[in-house]
């Protein structure tokens, strides 16, 4: 692998994603289904006939079948943190990568009521040997008794904030982030993605799973929305 520059990554991206100007989603050929043709499994949009799309699709098909790196990763991590839960977020064929997540629960800061739900995650690319670790925090605050809904089957006692993104793991995430990074490097043989390149737009690529948003190195090689983890 040559040095990790935006230019190199953009060239790599063009291996997997065809031209956007040739295949804009606003102009996707309408699917016309006539009676009797309802079960056409072979239906493809024009951009899906390109060698780039085929390479991207093959990468996912391989990833879904080859679970060995995941097994190595989780088998390596679980004995280290026997009390913690791990998750694997694999939005198959709807992203450029996946994520391994470690879940922590910590009290609120400043003695406030409630707790913080912390996810420390490694985003792992399918398309290049790259990963990065980061974290999100959701704050859960108790719902005051007068606002609860005991007559409902589901009566939550806490309210969760939207997750907040920490591209740089916080101090309390750091030991977990370091351990996660080490194990991802071993299991997947990947290297750290330079985060300063995350928001670099990649012009003129049709990323199959984007609904018209601007393609970036982040959403083309990793996840569409790294904050929205499972």
């Amino acid at each position: 692998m040559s040095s990790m520059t935006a230019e190199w990554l953009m060239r790599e991206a063009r291996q997997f994603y065809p031209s956007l100007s040739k295949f804009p989603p606003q102009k996707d050929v309408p699917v016309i289904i006539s009676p009797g043709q309802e079960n056409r499994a072979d239906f493809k949009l024009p951009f899906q006939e390109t060698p780039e799309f085929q390479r991207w699709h093959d990468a996912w098909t391989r990833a879904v079948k080859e679970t060995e790196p995941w097994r190595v990763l989780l088998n390596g991590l679980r004995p280290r943190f026997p009390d913690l839960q791990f998750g694997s977020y694999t939005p198959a064929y709807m992203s450029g990568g996946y994520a391994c997540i470690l879940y922590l629960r910590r009290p609120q800061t400043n003695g406030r009521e409630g707790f913080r739900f912390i996810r420390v995650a490694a985003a792992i690319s399918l398309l290049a040997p790259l990963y990065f670790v980061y974290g999100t925090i959701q704050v859960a605050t108790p719902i005051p008794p007068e606002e609860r809904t005991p007559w409902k089957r589901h009566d939550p006692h806490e309210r969760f904030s939207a997750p907040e993104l920490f591209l740089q793991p916080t101090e309390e995430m750091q030991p977990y982030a370091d351990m996660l990074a080490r194990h991802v490097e071993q299991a997947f043989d990947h290297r750290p993605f330079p985060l300063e390149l995350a928001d670099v737009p990649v012009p003129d690529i049709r990323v199959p799973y984007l609904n018209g948003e601007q393609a970036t190195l982040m959403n083309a090689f990793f996840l569409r929305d790294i904050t929205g983890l499972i």
Partner: protein
Amino acid sequence: MLAVILAVGTFGCAGAGAGPAGPNLVTGRISPAHFRFEQTVPKDKGPSGWRAVCIHAMMTNGDTGTRLACAFEVGVPVRNRDRGEISLETAQLITAAWANHAAYEVLSHARPGETLAVLCLQFRQRYRELLRQKIAGAEVSACTSGLTPVIFDLSPAVPSLL
């Protein structure tokens, strides 16, 4: 199987029902049974797994008679942190309800002259926003996985549903 016709009329009819209604009359509802999810990634011990379905939902412009199937793929985790195990039934109920909500919102506000391809794109965007508030990690996009599409149609083929 029932058919779904997401029909857009561009008349000045007031839309009925709850939600932010636009000026167009929108009829047709997708049902949970149409969301014939296939599990594409098995679940592991913690939050994990993936199930997805590709749907070609027929949209008809009531003014012009233009018809096109809006193809979209919905993916949901099999287990996430917020909900724990998400059963197939739960996934079907939630994805169908919010597909209807998003379709209603987008189609009732459609402006004359907007192409169905653009409306389909707007539908996928709005559906994704709404669905991710209900199921953390859910995704909506064009059909990309190669799953056999579930296809609804078609008004002429189902003359006597009522």
